[in-house]
């Protein structure tokens, strides 16, 4: 009896030992910094670096949330997400539908379509930055000469950086849509075809409804991706120009508050806002994973 119990205790010890490394990393670099945002938000940093921050209660939270720069940042972020996600999803879906047939050379097309999944934001920024350059880029040749130049233009800078994100997201979108299409039951598609459904009817009446869970998953993943991007703005527009070109998306504001203005308090407030918005989407994403878990578990 006691031998059994000691063996059980040994199993407990082993389990905690196996979990310890991951839990330590999570505690120090995920949970602690996340929770500390709520404390940092209550402390205001003096304008001179080096002096200690002092407690101001909710005053700082209120002033950040009421500031025009925050409102502008929020609007920019939403516009950015709205420009990136639907276009990326529809593009990925079209490519996936076109590639959903076993014909010669399809493996090459699939490889090409998914290729932007591996290109980093820095690579995408440098490549597109060259193409959009007013001197060496393609725009003058196309007869597009906005003044000021496209990446310094209050109207066109945000659509320009969104275009880069669309291209980058296209690969992931294609991969997700392809997986969705491949999971559709062939019998249903075949039955619809035998019923005389043509290509277009088939697409809208059969494929899209059957694919709706995948589309929803893509929407969630794409939205999270879009809310977390800022690299191309940092590389192509930079802190000096981001405000008047309306490209200072939320995450870029967090980065600037922290790294350029050296103001962790403001960064913390903005981080909490970003977290709250993303929470809705991460919770849904979690449900997707969970669904798979119950499958595997039982």
């Amino acid at each position, binding site marked *: 009896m006691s031998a059994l119990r000691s063996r059980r205790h040994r199993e407990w010890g082993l*389990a905690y030992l196996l979990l310890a490394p991951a839990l330590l990393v999570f505690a120090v670099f995920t949970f602690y910094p996340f929770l500390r945002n709520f404390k940092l938000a209550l402390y205001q940093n003096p304008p001179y670096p080096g002096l200690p921050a002092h407690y101001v209660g909710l005053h700082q939270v209120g002033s950040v949330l009421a500031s025009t720069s925050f409102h502008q940042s929020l609007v920019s972020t939403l516009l950015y997400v709205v420009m990136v996600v639907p276009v990326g999803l529809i593009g990925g879906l079209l490519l996936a539908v076109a590639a959903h047939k076993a014909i010669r050379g399809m493996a090459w097309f699939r490889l090409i379509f998914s290729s932007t999944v591996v290109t980093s934001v820095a690579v995408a920024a440098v*490549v597109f930055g060259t193409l959009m350059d007013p001197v060496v880029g393609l725009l003058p040749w196309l007869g597009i000469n906005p003044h000021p130049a496209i990446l310094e233009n209050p109207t066109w800078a945000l659509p320009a950086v969104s275009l880069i994100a669309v291209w980058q997201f296209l690969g992931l979108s294609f991969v997700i849509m392809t997986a969705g299409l491949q999971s559709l039951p062939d019998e249903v598609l075949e039955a619809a075809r035998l019923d005389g459904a043509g290509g277009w009817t088939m697409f809208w009446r059969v494929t899209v409804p059957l694919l709706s869970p995948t589309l929803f998953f893509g929407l969630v993943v794409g939205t999270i991706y879009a809310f977390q991007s800022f690299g191309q703005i940092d590389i192509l527009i930079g802190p000096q120009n981001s405000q008047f070109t309306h490209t200072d998306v939320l995450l870029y504001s967090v980065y600037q508050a922290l790294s350029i203005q050296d103001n962790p308090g403001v960064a913390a407030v903005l981080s909490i806002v970003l977290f709250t918005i993303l929470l809705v989407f991460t919770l849904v994403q979690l449900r997707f994973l969970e669904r798979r878990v119950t499958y595997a578990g039982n």
Partner: protein
Amino acid sequence: MPATDAAVRPPSSAPAAHRPPRRRHRRLRLVLRYALLSIGAVVVLFPLYMAVVNSLLAPSQIAHQPPPFFPLHPQWGSYRKAWTEGDLAVYLRNSAIQTTVIVAGQLVTSVLAAYAFAFLEFPLKRTLFVVFLMTLMIPFEVTIATNLSTVSSLGWFNTFPGLTVPFLATGFGTFLLRQAFLQIPRDLREAAQLDGYGHLRFLWSVAVPLARPALAALGVFSFLSAWNQYLWPLLVTGNDNSVRTVQIGLKQLINTQLDQINVSLAGTVIAVVPLLVLLVVFQKQLVRSLTSGAVK
């Protein structure tokens, strides 16, 4: 690997009288499909293609109107310049170290934790699993304010530990591997136990080999995300080259050598090549990890 799937064309069973128009119809549709696919391929590849073209041109040629779409006299000197003057060799080495440490760390911590969740019984198991799940709800971006000061106070600013340690565990990876472990029949564990296998030996010589596909998927996914990281390396690397990764190096390249666009594009091409290789070799594993949860 690509281009291996042969044309699948079921033998036509249509009556002879109907054959010609139907066949023509089918051929037309096939041509249309290839046209659509080719347009898609051109759109997707065009930016990278132009980067390669421009990297092989002299700066004066790049600015030429209409722009050249093919390098008639390719000048490979830009690649040598990016490699030496742009310090790309150093950046690539740093990225390789950073990525290797993160991938190895994530695989180890995820295997250990996933094993505990899949094969062991212990108090607070459900609670701890929820704790792991909760990490998926906290994007790294919302933790940077404190993580930056933590890393600085540990003396890790501008060091490899600062670059890698915050990423040495992953809730997603633990999740993926736990599922793979759950697929292993319980009988196998019991049989191994009768043979005198302890947990650690079972983990190493039975569970890990059986979960190889999931491990590969996680490894490729970790590699991709670590190599392409931008925000954190930007925050924790200083003004010297000692640990700067290739992504931050690209920003430097485009900022310092504005008149040498061909050099920064050469650098970009060099930076993207390792990942294109990764995609070609591990396409299946990558797709598997990216679509976890997308389909049942």
